[in-house]
């Protein structure tokens, strides 16, 4: 059992260490057509695919290959922006917009769903103080 477990761990470790070209091609962007490499047949995309395969054959890991391409083409070559620095904004802004939008919608729904009081007959009673004033004036007029 322990032997089987050890073999599985080793197999898992080996697959994590050996990058898959197809996976990398879906995580890297062609700098000319700005689609991922697996979606592009542009000459530079084909050259990048050849570069990836050559580096895999040379034993490079996924991060090493990505770093090598970033050194040539900048961070724009990564389909997912880096998680730190300015790239963090690309993650935070959509989240912020989502939360902000949800808040605005919640406030609107709350406001619009409040029941308005049903329209009743107009209240034709006078304010007691005003009524007293009117009575006084009328009494003065009659006198």
């Amino acid at each position: 059992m322990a032997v089987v477990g050890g073999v599985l761990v080793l197999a898992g470790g080996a697959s994590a260490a050996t990058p898959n070209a197809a996976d990398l091609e879906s995580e890297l962007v062609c700098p000319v057509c700005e689609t991922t490499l697996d979606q592009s047949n542009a000459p530079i995309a084909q050259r990048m695919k050849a570069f990836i395969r050559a580096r895999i054959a040379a034993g490079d890991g996924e991060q090493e290959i990505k770093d090598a391409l970033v050194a040539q083409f900048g961070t724009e070559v990564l389909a997912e922006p880096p998680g730190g620095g300015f790239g963090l904004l690309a993650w935070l802004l959509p989240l912020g917009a989502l939360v902000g939008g949800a808040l605005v919608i919640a406030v609107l729904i709350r406001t619009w769903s409040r029941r308005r009081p049903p329209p009743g007959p107009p209240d034709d009673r006078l304010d007691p103080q005003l009524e007293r004033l009117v009575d006084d004036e009328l009494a003065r007029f009659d006198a």
Partner: protein
Amino acid sequence: MASRARLVAQGVAIGLVVLLFLLLAWSLLHDEGGDLAKRANRGDRPSAPDFTLERLDGPGSLTLSSLRGKAVVLNVWASWCIPCKEEAPYLEQLWRSQRAKGLVVLGLDAKDFREDARRFASRFDLTFPLVYDGPGDAIGDYGVTGFPETFVLDRDGRVVQAFAGAVNGEDERIRLRSAVESAVSS
């Protein structure tokens, strides 16, 4: 309270619309690169956006504005670009024949591997200065949409003429020579 919440929501909505409008206006105002070639070919002579890029043909970097006082043919190319292969020998010939008159041909390799670019330069025996813009940041300011593109700058760093596509046909070469004459004599 409800009317206050409604006012806040309306304020946020109006704020978002205003923000989007400002972003649109900003992007339109800063899209100078898109019409740089148009303005140049209309005769406006817009200033060429400055850049500092690493050199491919040696160590260090080169700043475009350091070439003030010389006319410049700025050629944007890449090793994978097929028309660039036909154009490169002509540009080398232009550089050799006009450099004594104060012309610099500057090759700007973009969206390319450095080693591929150096191999290209060696294959075509290019001796004019070469700079490297892998991410293509500098060429965005020029509104470059394809490869190759060429800009002729006068001695004050203003764009005299822009060429989208290769300068391989006789008509384009006549236009290029005419623009170079104008830039060198400026």
